[in-house]
């Protein structure tokens, strides 16, 4: 009898133990800190995506900044959590759903940020901006993080997208940097005739093709036509936007892009350019280190790379100093953070220090202004920074401007347009439909 009771008890203990281990959740993780008077110990959690492996320089700067911050604020400890890009996005979503966002984290602009702001998860940072930070930003960069006139994140990077080209290939066929779109088409034609793929494009990723479309839209219709079509004050069925789509298909018909571009990822396309199998490559300035300082890429190749501004279209309204680009990641502070004051202080500190160090140490162009006169940089950086100062307009990437639903439709349509699966008219019509539906 006793034995039976004993074995029953054993089983019961086992069951409970199993159930408990199955359900135990990590309650420790989300808890950040007690609200604090100055002397109390405060811990800020900081989630970012610069791993020591893939972004070594970035990671080192972050650690330096944190160390300095902790030195100046002995009561604050900053705890990092680092995830790769894709994982980072997914984790942020899951944490948001369970209301356990880190005190400080990274976000992207406009469309990405919007759902979080609507869910009241990010704290407005206008007070930080007004405390002297505002003048340090390149004008127009913080707006991308604003919803209803409140800024919810502060950008760390600013990118524009020049067309990189291989000087040696251009020289071999006696080609000059094209100033007008006609010149550009001649360059393409000459290269095709000589069996060189003119443009490396990895359109499996779709945003890559979107940049080509955006430039043509900008050069034909002017800086505001596309912007207005996206924000609803204009229409996507504007003749200039349809014309831009036609030009894309003309380029495809001319075989301007590498073979099989719709099935290649951006990395594969970049490899074609770095292997000198394609002459041009339109990409953001985040790739500048690869063409200047990155020792993993042969020096002979790096010396061959130059860049030019997307040429103007005759009779178009756009000018050559208008760029496609925009801020990359920015820092947010969680609305429900228990150490909001400290978190904001940290964000401000981080932005300032990052601005000082990021170009020289990691080759990242910060969203804050850079004084080129007394720092030592590769010439291409100085050229790009000077172009930035001259820029008449920077149009934010279309898929970032749009809300996620419209952005997906846009990207799919871009792929169809390049694959000649949709006519320019339908391309514009379907954009207009989804934009007016999701407005």
């Amino acid at each position, binding site marked *: 009898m006793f034995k*039976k009771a004993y*074995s*029953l008890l054993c*089983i*019961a203990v*086992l*069951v409970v133990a*199993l*159930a408990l281990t*199955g*359900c135990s959740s990590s309650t420790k993780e989300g808890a950040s800190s007690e609200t604090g008077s100055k002397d109390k110990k405060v811990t800020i959690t900081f989630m970012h995506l610069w791993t020591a492996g893939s972004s070594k320089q970035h990671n080192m700067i972050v650690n330096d900044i944190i160390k300095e911050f902790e030195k100046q604020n002995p009561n604050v400890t900053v705890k990092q959590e680092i995830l790769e890009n894709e994982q980072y996005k*997914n984790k942020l*979503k899951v944490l*948001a*759903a369970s209301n356990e966002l880190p005190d400080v984290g990274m976000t992207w602009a406009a469309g990405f940020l919007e*759902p*979080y702001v*609507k*869910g009241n*998860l990010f704290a407005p940072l206008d007070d930080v901006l007004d405390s002297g930070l505002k003048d340090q930003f390149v004008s127009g960069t913080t707006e991308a993080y604003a919803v209803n006139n409140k800024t919810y994140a502060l950008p760390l990077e600013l990118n524009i997208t020049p067309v990189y080209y291989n000087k040696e290939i251009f020289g071999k066929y006696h080609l000059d940097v094209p100033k007008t779109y006609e010149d550009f088409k001649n360059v393409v034609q000459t290269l095709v005739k000589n069996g060189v*793929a003119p443009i490396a494009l990895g*359109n*499996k990723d*779709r945003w890559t093709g979107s940049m080509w479309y955006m430039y043509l839209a900008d050069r034909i219709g002017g800086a505001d036509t596309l912007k207005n079509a996206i924000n609803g004050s204009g229409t996507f069925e504007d003749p200039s936007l349809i014309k831009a789509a036609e030009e894309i298909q003309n380029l495809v018909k001319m075989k301007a892009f*590498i*073979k*099989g*571009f*719709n*099935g*290649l990822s951006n990395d*594969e396309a970049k490899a*074609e350019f770095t292997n000198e*199998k394609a002459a041009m490559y339109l990409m953001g300035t985040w790739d500048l280190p690869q063409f200047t300082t990155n020792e993993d890429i042969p020096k002979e190749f790096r010396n061959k790379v130059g860049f030019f501004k997307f040429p103007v279209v005759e009779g178009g309204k756009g000018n050559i100093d208008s760029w496609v680009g925009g801020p990359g990641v920015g820092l947010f502070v969680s609305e429900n953070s228990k150490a909001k004051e400290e978190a904001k202080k940290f964000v401000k500190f981080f932005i300032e220090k990052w601005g000082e160090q990021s170009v020289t140490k990691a080759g990242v162009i910060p969203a804050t202004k850079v004084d080129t006169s007394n720092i030592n940089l590769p010439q291409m950086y100085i050229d790009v920074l000077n172009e930035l100062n001259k820029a008449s307009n920077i149009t934010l990437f279309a898929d970032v401007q749009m809300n*996620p*639903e419209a*952005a*997906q439709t846009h990207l*799919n349509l871009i*792929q*169809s347009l390049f*694959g000649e*699966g*949709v006519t320019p008219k339908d391309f514009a019509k379907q954009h207009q439909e989804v934009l007016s539906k999701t407005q």
Partner: protein
Amino acid sequence: MSFLSNTKGVDSMNKMMSDKRVITLYILPSLLLIMILVYIPIVMTGYYSLMKWDGIGSMKFIALDNYQELIKDTMFWKSVYHSFLLAVFSVISLAGYLIISLVLSGKIKGANLLRKIYLIPMLLSSVAIAQLWLRIYHPSNGMLNHFLMFLGMEDPPNWLADPSIALYAIFVPIIWQYAGFYILIYYAALKNIPSSIIEAAIIDGANPWQLAYKIKLPLIAGVIKVTIVLAVVGSLKYFDLIYVMTGGGPNGASEVIASYMYQKAFRSFNFGYGSTIAFALLLLCVIATWVIRKFTHSDEEIQY
């Protein structure tokens, strides 16, 4: 002595198992795990599918609106068609695997080595397979196109970039990936057939074809049915290679149900609609399984 204590053990075991409370206790842990990990998420998915929800903010109950949209969604039906096409190809390829296993299970030299070679793709992770085949299919310096150009082809196809062939190009690695798995199953089933039956047939004068067709196949019919269900359901919910190799593109030419669900939930931030697709996928799988069971059902289970 040992014999005695043994029967005693069995006795008390039987006594304990007749106690309903003990049975409940034994089942409870696995029941709880299955509930938490499988059934509750299914119910939750069904619940989310009735909502308008971006995955972050608050949910809004919209009843069956998502399902109405789903029925009218041409992209969804296109992905369903692609998934079923994959299922058809997978089932056809089963016949090939069966023939290979029949040959392997015969007494040929090196059968063991060959069996291991066939199993290798299954040991690779999906992403590695995808990377491998991306290299093979690369339009300008991939192995396949190099070979075709070597044969004198002027303009070899852009395998993964051409909407009319991308889907079929991607079926090849998917089917290749699972070859080892099914061959292993068939091989094990064929090896299980008692040699006495085979020997009897040979003595009766059956030739190898008759042996395979009239004796071996009927004896492993049960296993074949199971593999058909596995192949169909596995194809319907297939995701990984497609996600890595084409992401459903170009122009949705290789979109399957699961990749479309991922697009909607994690790219378009439309979790309500994504859940609706997931739930529809579940229903399709259940229906497909039921139909297959119904058609392949036979009353007499062969025993040997």
